């Protein structure tokens, strides 16, 4: 049997590992006991219980008077206690997602994906899910600021308009520095602003830009564009360091498409083959069928080798192909067999690399097939050179004023300190940030912008794909949309961006469609749907030319030596703009399973040879970083996540991890996110990491079952032979469970699941799951109701990776139910394993007896407790809580409920309407927004439901079937499309 392992310690020495694990747990328990007072908990409860009862008698204890305050004038669409959904658009940190915002009694509390959008297709990412918490962040600015002191808008407006006019009169340049702008109306506002102030220039700056692709396409096609990648059409996907499932360009869209091309349920389903070349193990790499760990400097060499081999095979080139550090023969064969149906992408920011990628795609005829040039992706428009120009102009005092909007170069640029001085030294420096950050702190004036859930806006993420954003709550603080500020300074007396937006849509968008003639009806329709897509005619078709290719190839052999350190965007924090979001900080990294820190991922062999262990501290160019020994890390390389080490982010994000933007370099005008010849030194120090990877030992049992695509085609039950064996042996003393009405079940397709963590955050938002902080995560008390286990197999140098979401299995023969002394966790008539918090006395017997380790104990009061000062310690932060779910207190056990509040809500709705519940009508939070559609939920009593079909699928199995717990959650075997 394949040996599955979760960490190197376990692989090398399982006995010692097991002992260590137990010791760690004991230590943690001892530490807790030491803290406790002299009297035991039982003594306390006894005395307390008696005194309450006695006090009740003598004082006839009364409840405080509660007030019930009805609306003065009830809005027609609001029913107290019932949620409304509004379509809106998320665009932050270069990530676009069309969303539905769930609003309960005037408060947005949950983000769902919009199924009408052709881009996100009801999927979201963990960052999108967590964005609702940013709305209720204590770190948000409450008023406009003048040099750090509160001021008012009148003062700001009069000063800045005057200053702008003066700079304009003196013909001094002012720069509006923004992140990528995808809003057509905002662009119009800026154009209006520039008419008033012709001295204003717009520079778009992205923390992690796609300059390389943009510039390469300008050379190849004459236009700086990002094409529309169609992953669902590709039979062979080759990615060079592009984490397209995690953070690259439009990851939610690509995840949807990628999982469509890999779903194997019925006989004739096909599956793409995914090759990944990368330095560190990324989310995308962990899902690849064939993965090559390479140094960043080798990327171009390998690409050139592939290009030449392709040319040779096509007979267009006779000279021998240059050597490649890895064997790419099989890959070239696959590419040639799938011309027109293949896709090669690279995450590099280097123009030459991208030029070779373009050449390969052109050679394979992928343009017009898997890569569409008709529609362009607009979410990354920043070109690094422009920003470097701006810096030199600021230095030479050519630019006298700077308006920063949605950018934080002081943090995310290697010359941060210098930029800080340049900004604060400018004659006029304004920030529109809604919170204080490194750049905002350097600006003289701060005109806080509202959160996107409080704002009007529109977006054109892709050519012809439009969407609207609408406010779902009135502004919590004294903020003003930046568009209104710009209009105000341009001389509009009472600017109203909503009216501006509406009239812009009336004038410029109504004509793009024929369905509605009345622009108001059109507007209402788009507002309701959130999206509006234009069927575009083929624009002037772009023709490929080999511009610059020769140079690119001639430069393909990069000289490099020593350590190469690659910087990547982590799935949780990406570019770090959400660093103050405790949900994201606590989301374990999909591969390393570390939260609350970034770390240096080092290769296994080097660590063994040098006696380095996890949590040892090394220095990289002088920056101290804790080590995580990463299976699959390319030799002589180290990977470190960006997005950490914020200095001014808020109480949660300040000083978490180290800032790696500071170590990145600028090479020929572009930000280069890897360095060579790094100075790596070992130290004797250690640094504690919140590792959650060794939690929940599965004791080497066949938890993940797998097969290959070829075997699956021969026998759909391949890899799942154990199931039959177990089912033969099923005998039980307990009566057969009987279900009344429904039998809820869930299926997880391990082949689709990419392990992105969206479900964990979605569940956290829906079910009021609390953040517990680094120390408690270290103590193995993370509260997530749905965790994603990650297992490695085979070679530690380049392992295969499995992601497995595990939530309460809702066993029909549940071991936890039998041991509860107070019947707090009985079984429902509908197959749910129920948890009654108010009955739980906290014996934790159920936690011990659960073979899946999905039950969570509230070791502390996490709400309104200054010791856990994350999101739930202020009235503002608690506004995000879902009123339909009890907030658990200290001393009770909690776990996944299959989102029972949603089940009951839909059941009530169906009952009132007198109809049956449709299949797929009820969707738990994790299922609803899964970008890979890996989760399915439904009624197992309905033989035709989707879930029943999944359960009937030959790939379906249950966790620890041999225990006869009869879980209501099924897993579909992992299928990999390996090459024979």
């Amino acid at each position, binding site marked *: 049997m394949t040996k599955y392992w979760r960490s190197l310690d376990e692989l090398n020495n399982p006995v010692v590992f097991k002992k260590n694990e137990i010791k760690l747990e004991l230590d943690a328990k001892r530490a807790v006991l030491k803290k406790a007072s002299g009297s035991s908990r039982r003594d306390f409860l006894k005395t307390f219980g008696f005194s309450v009862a006695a006090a009740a008698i003598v004082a006839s*204890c009364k409840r405080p008077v509660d007030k019930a305050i009805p609306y003065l004038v009830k809005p027609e669409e609001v029913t107290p206690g019932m949620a409304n959904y509004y379509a809106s658009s998320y665009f932050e940190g270069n990530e676009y997602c069309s969303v539905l915002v769930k609003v309960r009694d005037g408060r947005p509390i949950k983000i769902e994906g919009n199924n009408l959008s052709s881009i996100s297709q009801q999927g979201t990412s963990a960052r999108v899910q967590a964005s609702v918490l940013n709305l209720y962040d204590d770190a948000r600015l409450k008023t406009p600021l003048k040099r750090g002191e509160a001021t008012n808008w009148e003062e700001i407006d009069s000063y800045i308009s005057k200053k702008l006019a003066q700079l304009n009169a003196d013909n001094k340049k002012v720069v509006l520095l923004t992140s990528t702008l995808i809003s057509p109306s905002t662009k119009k506002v800026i154009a209006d602003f520039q008419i008033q102030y012709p001295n204003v220039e717009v520079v778009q700056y992205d923390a992690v830009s796609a300059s390389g692709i943009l510039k390469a396409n300008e050379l190849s096609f004459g236009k700086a564009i990002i094409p529309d990648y169609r992953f669902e059409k590709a039979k062979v996907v080759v990615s060079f360091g592009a984490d397209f499932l995690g953070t690259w360009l439009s990851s939610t869209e690509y995840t949807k498409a990628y999982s469509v091309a890999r779903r194997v349920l019925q006989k004739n389903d096909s599956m793409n083959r995914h090759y990944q070349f990368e330095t560190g193990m990324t989310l995308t790499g962990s899902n690849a069928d064939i993965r090559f760990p390479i140094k960043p400097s080798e990327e171009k060499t390998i690409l050139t080798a592939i290009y030449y081999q392709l040319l040779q095979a096509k007979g267009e080139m006779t000279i021998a192909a240059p050597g490649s550090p890895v064997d790419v023969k099989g890959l070239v064969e696959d590419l040639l067999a799938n011309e027109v149906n293949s896709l090669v992408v690279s995450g590099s920011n280097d123009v030459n690399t991208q030029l070779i990628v373009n050449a390969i795609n052109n050679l394979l005829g992928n343009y017009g097939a898997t890569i569409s040039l008709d529609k362009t992706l607009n979410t990354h428009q920043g070109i690094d050179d422009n920003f470097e120009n701006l810096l030199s102009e600021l230095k030479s005092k050519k630019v006298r004023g700077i308006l920063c909007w949605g950018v934080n170069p002081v943090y995310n640029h290697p010359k941060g300190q210098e930029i800080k001085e340049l900004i604060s030294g400018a004659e006029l420096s304004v920030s529109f940030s809604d919170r204080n950050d490194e750049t905002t702190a350097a600006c003289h004036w701060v005109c806080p912008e509202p959160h996107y859930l409080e704002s009007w806006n529109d977006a054109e993420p892709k050519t012809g794909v439009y969407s609207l954003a609408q406010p779902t709550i009135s502004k919590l603080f004294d903020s003003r949309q930046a568009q209104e500020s710009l209009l105000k300074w341009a001389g509009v007396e009472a600017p109203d961006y909503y009216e501006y937006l509406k009239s812009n849509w009336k004038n410029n968008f109504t004509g793009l469609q024929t369905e509605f003639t009345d622009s108001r009806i059109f507007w209402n329709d788009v507002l309701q749907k959130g999206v509006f897509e234009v069927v575009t005619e083929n624009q002037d078709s772009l023709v490929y030319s080999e511009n610059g290719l020769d140079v690119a190839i001639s430069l393909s052999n990069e000289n490099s030596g020593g350590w190469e350190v690659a910087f990547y965007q982590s799935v949780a924090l990406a570019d770090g703009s959400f660093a103050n979001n405790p949900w994201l900080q606590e989301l374990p990294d999909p591969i390393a399973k570390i939260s609350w820190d970034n770390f240096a991922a080092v290769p296994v062999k080097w660590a063994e040879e040098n006696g380095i262990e996890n949590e040892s501290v090394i220095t990289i160019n002088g920056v101290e970083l804790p080590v995580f020994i990463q299976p699959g890390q390319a030799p002589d390389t180290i990977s470190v996540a960006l997005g950490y080490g914020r200095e001014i982010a808020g109480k949660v994000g300040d000083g978490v991890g180290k800032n790696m933007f500071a170590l990145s370099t600028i090479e020929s005008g572009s930000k280069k996110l890897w360095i060579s010849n790094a100075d790596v030194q070992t130290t004797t120090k250690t640094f504690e990491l919140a590792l959650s990877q060794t939690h929940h030992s599965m004791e080497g049992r066949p938890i993940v079952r797998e097969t290959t695509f070829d075997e699956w085609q021969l026998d759909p039950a391949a890899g799942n032979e154990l199931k039959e064996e177990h089912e033969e042996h099923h005998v039980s003393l307990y009566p057969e469970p009987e279900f009344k009405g429904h039998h809820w079940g869930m299926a997880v397709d391990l082949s689709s699941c990419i392990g992105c963590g969206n479900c964990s955050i979605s569940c956290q938002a829906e079910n009021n799951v609390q953040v517990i902080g680094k120390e408690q995560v270290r103590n193995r008390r993370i509260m997530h109701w749905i965790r994603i286990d990650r297992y490695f197999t085979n070679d530690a140098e380049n392992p295969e990776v499995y992601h497995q979401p595990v939530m309460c299995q809702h066993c029909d023969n549940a071991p936890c139910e039998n041991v509860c002394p107070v019947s707090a966790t009985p079984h429902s008539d509908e197959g749910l394993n129920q948890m009654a918090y108010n009955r739980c006395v906290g014996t934790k017997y159920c936690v011990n007896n659960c073979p899946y380790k999905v039950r969570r104990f509230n070791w502390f009061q996490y709400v309104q407790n200054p010791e856990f000062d994350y999101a739930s310690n202020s009235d503002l932060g608690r506004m995000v809580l879902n009123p339909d779910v009890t907030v658990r207190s200290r001393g009770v056990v909690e776990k996944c409920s299959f989102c029972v509040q949603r089940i009951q809500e839909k059941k009530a709705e169906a009952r009132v309407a007198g109809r049956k519940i449709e299949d797929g009508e009820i969707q738990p939070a994790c299922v609803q927004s899964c970008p890979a559609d890996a989760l399915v939920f439904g009624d197992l009593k309905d033989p035709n439901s989707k879930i029943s079909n999944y359960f009937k699928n030959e790939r379906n199995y249950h966790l620890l079937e041999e225990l006869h717990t009869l879980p209501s959650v099924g897993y579909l075997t992992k299928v990999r499309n390996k090459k024979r």
Partner: protein
Amino acid sequence: MFTTKLNRMREYFLGGSYMKKRPIFFSLLVFVACFILSTNIYAETNESVVSDGHSHEDIARGERFFKGLLPFDRKYSSCVSCHNLKQVDTLNWNPSAMDIAMKFVDKDYETFQASVLNPSGKKMEASHVNFNISEEDLKTVKVYLDDLAHHGTHPVKPTFNNLILFLFLGLLITWAVIELIFLKKIKLKLIPVIILLGAFGWQVNMIVTDAIRLSRQQDYAPDQPIKFSHKVHAGDNGIDCMYCHTTVEQGKSAGIPATNLCMNCHVIIREGTNSGKFEIAKVVDAAENGKPVEWNRIHNLPDHVFFSHAVHVGSGKLDCAQCHGAVEEMDIMRQESELSMGWCINCHRDTEVDIMNNGYYQHHIERQEELQSGARDKVTANDVGANDCMRCHY
């Protein structure tokens, strides 16, 4: 010698031994807190504003006049006979002293005088007749009322009957124990034993009954900021419950009507048969000045209970009165039912569900077949899973 003692004392208060006493200290705290809480409830309901000062004599004289304690020719009844100072169990339609005080606190004497002596509205005209109050007296009344608005009525002290009884039983127990062990005066030992057991049993009984009642509030009928009578609206005028509680069939909550809904009728009806103009004026004031009415909440389930009106009324077609009682006879709204878990569960066990005529219950096809074949004569809410924990707790 002295210092060691001091140290020991310090240790006692700060160190380990203090920790041991903490549970007892904590329970004492709860004990005291309950007292404070129970008295505060009344103080809270009588809001007061900051005083601007008058002589205490004026205030005292005004109070005596208001209460009818001054020797004078009594052609008319005293103020307090209609405008009560304390809370009462039955509904007094006339505005209370506090109501009047709050209304006139920021108005001048002339307005007050005009209102008292030149009554408007039928109700007031009928009662405020032949008022011959000297200006001097009326001024002191206004001063007294202003003071009332500032300082509130005196809080009603909680009764201590239960406490006295409890302590008395405790004494009995103590005496019985001492008698049995030390004094041994009574030869028939059975007597102190019976007294001991009886007293202890009584105490336990008191604790149990009151502990069960803890945080339940059956028959709770607080005074409301507006003397809104369900009897007048639902009973006398026969307005359907759902005219005001609009969301009862769709939402979890039945909904407390928004003030603009009151104004549907009260835009015209400005004077009531019982209350005259005073109470309705409060609704109009709330609607016009944008100050929502702060009702005292009566039916209040614990936070971990999720109850849906839609399921019970919209789908189950239950009559409102089944849980809320004869609301159309209540002047002061009262919580009719216990609203305890036992009460819910018992009802679910008995209440029949019409599963044949609601499309949803096709999911319960087995029950439907049993009904049709006669294998079962009825299907109760319990049979379709109404008593599952997670039906209400999640």
